[in-house]
């Protein structure tokens, strides 16, 4: 190997070398100082927030660049994109420099940063130049050769890693490919529009649905499940993220460690709403800015209103509309607390029911899917979902809207103080318009009268005022009011007193008028929010059947609640069943709705009435047309009311002392979902099938999330239905269901009571001769084949329609719905709408792997592993090291 040595430099060459050496030192000093100032400037600018915008712009440019690179086909396009990216970066830096020069005092930190960076860059360039000169002038070929080799190796290293950064492969070698999306899902997702981006927001608000009341604390199983499901969701979104730039994932945690959840939420919302237009908002017109603001507010509300940990899927679709879909973490993994507590002979484990990745993929692929619209047919606006009233259904509306449904109220009766309720079909807006019209009319009348009274009052006051000093006027007034004065004469004091009264009246009137005008304006404002022309047109329709059919047209499912008995011990808490009876045209409209293949949920409370109800007319206690219609489908409503044994005391007290302290009933026991086939059916009626229906199975799984109590008994789902009505399914001739249609059953500690109201001579009680003991089915759901007679005129083949019924219409009223009740409704509606895939399943069970069989805890084997292997191994090597050390000391 040839080694060359450089010849000693001539003395004359030393002077320039000394100069150069000092210059080189100065340049290096400049570079190092520049780097220090750049760091200082970056620090100061970051704490002053001056770098936020440039960094954000740079991040956006990077996002676009990486997105464009993925979509670019040829190398030329990639090169163009890279050039464009560098230009954007340069623009950002240039803009920063321009701002700094314009306001040098305010931007001192930025100046430090830019000037320092420039000095460092200059020094580096000089170093590169020096290295090049060095290699060019070195006499030894080794130096140049080695340097070139090193440079080439470095280029290869950087290029290879840069390439692998964006072109990588992840091979899932796990047993069940748990980190890989199924092939069909991947294929489906590959069809997503490449030009649009979908954002998945993983919203962790640290609340699992869990069917718990809000005031109940999570136990260790709930917490463990929450943490695990969050991990699983993270894994899942990683897999979606790997699909490409079309899917963007954002994580939001309400308890994030940096306490910046609110800011982060706003950033995410802005990015979704404004998309790639977020920079330079001033360029956009006011209309667009307002649209963005509205969308951002709406999206924020949607996210923050989520009742539990959720995934949100957001993307712009047709007509630039922002579509949002939500999926609960529980739709992905469901806790099976009962199995968790029972696992390993009671030692416990975490058992989750995996619902598959399909629900997530479905949301992504059907983002623009219309939300199902639920029609709720009530008999009075107070009972509707718009009213914030204990008897209204505001809670139900909120629960359904949070879970992706739309709700529409339909009012079936027109009410008047002077006539019995008449059949109608109106929206709540129509009823509201009627009320507002009445109020407006009354208000206008009052204002008109007050305005007319004002001049007369003023004139009277002036006359009496004048009469105080003018005797002639007093005489004139005495003559005018001679009848009231009984021939007497007005004195100065009388006139003064009357003038004062008139003045006060006038002042009151002047105060009242603006107030009435304001109230009129409020009413008119309220009216202006309604689509008055359309409502007027609806009001003009007098054909109830046609109008109801029209209202039902855009509903996907109809709920007919009949809140009758809420508390038999308190007469004022119940609504007579007869008020709910529908007229024939209304029943026909609902029949047409069913014939169109749309599903129905009937929630009919008991029809029993107090024996002393004088307003009852003959026939009022008979089932109405809708009940008969359901009877044709096989659903028979019992005539009794189910009372529970724990209510007997309250009923007795109500009879004894209805005014003071009576009427307080114990809460009923929760409904059941587990029972033996045939239980609850009348004697002689065989069970339809041993197979539970889909809703019941779903609710059974939901109940398993509650686990067992301290005594080891399963904790029931907290759905308590007071005063339900038994429901029986009798299959129509020729039809056979492959499953048991019953899905709700009362507790066995109950009886069916024909006279549920306590009266002066009777307290409802269980009498084995008159009543049957529980349990009773109070909820059925079935695929009903519509009767052929309905199609007699057309000759069509009757279709099958999903119908469900619950024997109570009042347990879901109020301003807020309990989580378990909400889950019941969501499950029923999903099933009715044919969305079976959205009901929980137990096909795939996940649990923590355990090694208890091979290493039983507490056993000798366990101790050997723990101490022998865990701590014995280091001890062994410590010993060996000691021996070697001793051996080395032997001479």
């Amino acid at each position, binding site marked *: 190997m040839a*080694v*060359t040595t450089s010849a000693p430099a001539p003395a004359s060459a030393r002077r320039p070398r000394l100069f150069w050496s000092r210059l080189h030192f100065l340049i290096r000093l400049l570079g190092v100082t520049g780097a220090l100032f750049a760091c200082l400037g970056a620090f100061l600018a970051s704490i002053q927030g001056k770098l936020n915008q440039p960094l954000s712009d740079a991040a956006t440019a*990077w*996002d676009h660049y*990486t997105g464009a690179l993925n979509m670019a086909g040829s190398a030329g396009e990639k090169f163009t994109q890279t050039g464009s990216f560098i230009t954007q970066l340069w623009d950002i830096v240039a803009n920063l420099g321009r701002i700094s020069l314009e306001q040098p005092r305010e931007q001192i930190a930025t100046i430090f940063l830019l000037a320092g960076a420039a000095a460092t860059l200059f020094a580096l360039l000089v170093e590169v130049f020096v290295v090049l000169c060095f290699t060019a002038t070195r006499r030894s070929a*080794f*130096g140049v050769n*080695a340097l070139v*080799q*090193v440079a080439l*190796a470095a280029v290869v*290293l950087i290029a*290879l*890693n840069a390439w*692998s*950064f964006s072109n*990588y*492969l*992840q*091979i899932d*070698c*796990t*047993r069940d490919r748990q*980190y890989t999306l199924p092939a069909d899902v991947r294929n489906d997702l590959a069809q997503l529009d490449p030009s649009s981006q979908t954002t998945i927001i993983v919203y962790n608000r640290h609340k699992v649905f869990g069917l718990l009341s809000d005031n109940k604390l999570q136990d*260790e*199983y709930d917490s*463990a*499940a929450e943490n*695990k499901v969050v991990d699983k969701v993270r894994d899942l979104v*990683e897999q979606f*993220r790997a699909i490409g730039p079309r899917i*963007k994932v*954002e*994580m939001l945690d309400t308890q994030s*460690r940096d306490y910046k959840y609110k800011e982060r939420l706003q950033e995410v919302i802005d990015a979704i709403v404004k998309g790639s237009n977020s920079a330079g908002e001033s360029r956009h017109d006011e209309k667009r800015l307002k649209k963005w603001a509205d969308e951002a507010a709406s999206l924020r509300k949607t996210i923050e209103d989520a009742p539990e940990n959720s995934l949100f899927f957001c993307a712009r679709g047709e007509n630039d509309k922002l579509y949002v879909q939500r999926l609960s973490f529980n739709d992905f993994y469901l806790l099976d607390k009962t199995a968790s507590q029972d696992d390993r002979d009671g*030692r*416990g*484990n*975490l058992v989750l029911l995996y619902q598959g990745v399909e629900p997530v993929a479905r949301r992504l692929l059907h983002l623009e899917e219309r939300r199902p619209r639920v029609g709720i047919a009530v008999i009075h606006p107070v009972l509707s979902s718009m009213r914030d009233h204990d008897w209204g259904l505001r809670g139900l509306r909120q629960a359904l809207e949070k879970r992706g449904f739309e709700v529409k109220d339909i009012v079936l009766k027109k009410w008047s103080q002077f006539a019995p309720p008449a059949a109608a079909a109106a929206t709540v807006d129509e009823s509201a318009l009627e009320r507002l019209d009445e109020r407006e009319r009354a208000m206008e009348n009052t204002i008109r009268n007050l305005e007319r009274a004002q001049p007369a009052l003023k004139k009277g006051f002036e006359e009496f005022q004048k009469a105080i000093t003018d005797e002639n006027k007093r005489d004139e007034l005495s003559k005018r009011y001679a009848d009231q004065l009984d021939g007497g004469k007005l004195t100065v004091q009388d006139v003064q007193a009357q003038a004062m009264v008139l003045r006060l009246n006038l002042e009151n009137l002047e105060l009242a008028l603006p107030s009435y005008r304001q109230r009129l304006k409020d009413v008119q404002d309220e009216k202006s929010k309604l689509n008055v022309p359309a409502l007027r047109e609806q009001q003009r329709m007098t054909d109830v059947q046609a109008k109801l059919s029209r209202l039902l047209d855009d509903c996907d499912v109809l709920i007919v609640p009949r809140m009758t008995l809420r508390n038999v011990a308190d007469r004022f808490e119940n609504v007579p069943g007869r008020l709910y009876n529908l007229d024939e045209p209304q029943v026909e409209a609902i029949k047409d709705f069913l014939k169109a293949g749309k599903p129905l949920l009937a929630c009919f409370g008991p029809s029993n009435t107090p024996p002393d109800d004088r307003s009852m007319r003959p026939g009022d206690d008979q089932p109405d047309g809708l009940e008969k219609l359901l009877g044709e489908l096989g659903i028979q409503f019992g005539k009794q009311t189910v009372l529970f044994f724990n209510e007997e005391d309250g009923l007795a007290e109500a009879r004894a002392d209805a005014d003071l302290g009576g009427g307080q009933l114990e809460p009923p026991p929760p409904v059941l979902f587990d029972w033996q086939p045939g239980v609850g059916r009348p004697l002689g009626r065989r069970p339809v099938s041993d197979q539970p229906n889909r809703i019941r199975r779903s609710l059974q799984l939901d109940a398993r999330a509650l686990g067992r109590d301290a005594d080891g008994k399963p904790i029931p789902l907290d759905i308590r239905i007071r005063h339900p009505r038994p429901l029986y399914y009798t299959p129509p001739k020729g039809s056979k269901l492959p499953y048991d249609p019953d899905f709700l059953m009362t507790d066995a500690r109950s009886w069916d009571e024909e006279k549920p109201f306590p009266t002066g001579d009777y307290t409802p009680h269980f009498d084995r001769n008159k009543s049957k003991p529980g349990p009773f089915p109070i909820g059925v759901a079935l695929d009903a084949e519509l009767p052929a007679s309905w199609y007699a005129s057309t000759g069509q083949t009757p279709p099958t329609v999903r119908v469900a019924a619950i024997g109570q219409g009042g347990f879901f009223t109020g301003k807020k719905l309990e989580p378990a009740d909400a889950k019941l409704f969501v499950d029923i509606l999903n099933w009715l709408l044919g969305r079976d895939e959205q009901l929980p399943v137990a096909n795939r069970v996940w649990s*923590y*792997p*355990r*090694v*208890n*069989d*091979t*290493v*039983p*805890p507490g056993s000798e084997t366990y101790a050997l*592993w*723990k101490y022998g*292997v*865990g*701590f014995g*191994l*280091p001890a062994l*090597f*410590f010993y060996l*090291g000691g021996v*070697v050390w001793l051996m080395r000391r032997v001479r």
Partner: protein
Amino acid sequence: MFNNLSTREWLTLALVLVVLLGAAAGLLWMAIGLFRARSLIRREFSAYFLSPIAYVVLVVFLFVTGDLFVNTLGLLTAKGPMGTESPMQTMFGDKLFWLVFLFIPPLLTMRLFAEERSSGTLEMLMTAPLRDWQVVLCKYLACLAFYAVLWLPTLLYLPALLGASAPVFNNVWTVEGILFVAGLGSLLIGLVMLLPHLATGGRLASLVLIVGGSVAAGAGGWLHYNAAGPHLFEIPVQLDPYPVLWTYAGMFLAGAMFLAIGLLISSLVRSQMVAAILALAIGLLFVGGGFWRPELTGSNLYNFVYFFSVPLHFDRSFTRGLLDTRPLILYGSTALFCLFLTVRSLESRRWQ
């Protein structure tokens, strides 16, 4: 399969073949070179076992992994809803482990060249009839071998962590099974032949048996494992074995990278302490990202940090049974680059 290939695809295929053949020839050439320098490997390897620092490293390493093993075993047998889905992730996703791991490669590599340089034996080594790359690779392989030895005792944890039962032997002889057994036998014989002092022929034979036996046992074992039906040899396990396999493979490659970095630093400086501190500082660049906040998952910054962060590679990929090409390329390319630089660094002594 090859009928429908276009000219361009044929050319690509030919190019790949040429590259592979070139690589194989290069490897063979290097293997021969290393075989000739085997005494240096032996010397470097045995030096570890005579040095107290190696035992300190072993003891501390096993103590930490033992503690993590006990914790993981506790989770695998815990009462209630506590548990772990990936025992390897629980063990090697722990910050404590990476804090200790950070110190191991610098401690193993700091003396390799710096000691020779400070004691003046480097010149002697350089005048030996060996090429620079042979010196570098011999030291590197010895160091890597000791690193592998460091991990060998941890294999004892696996039966407990995988919930393995007693092995089952079935009298089922298939081609794959025979290949597997024959491979294992060759490997064993080759290892035994290393013990006595043999001539070059004997050493070559032992090497052939070790390499051939390893390949045969690996291929036969893989085919046998994936074949249906009863197997010759079965170890029933309750947990997924792939995360274990990839974790160990990943640890080997990551160690290879860190050791190569340490070796390079050791070749550049005279003081062992300085070499260790510098290697530690560079290692920190690859380990520090492991303490990154998970909230940033998915951002470009996170992706960038993830790319360089070895603990994150283990937390998200290897310990969960995922094989990610990014870390593999990073470890491999960085190790090769550092070895290349080490060779150049040694070489530079000749022309500086």
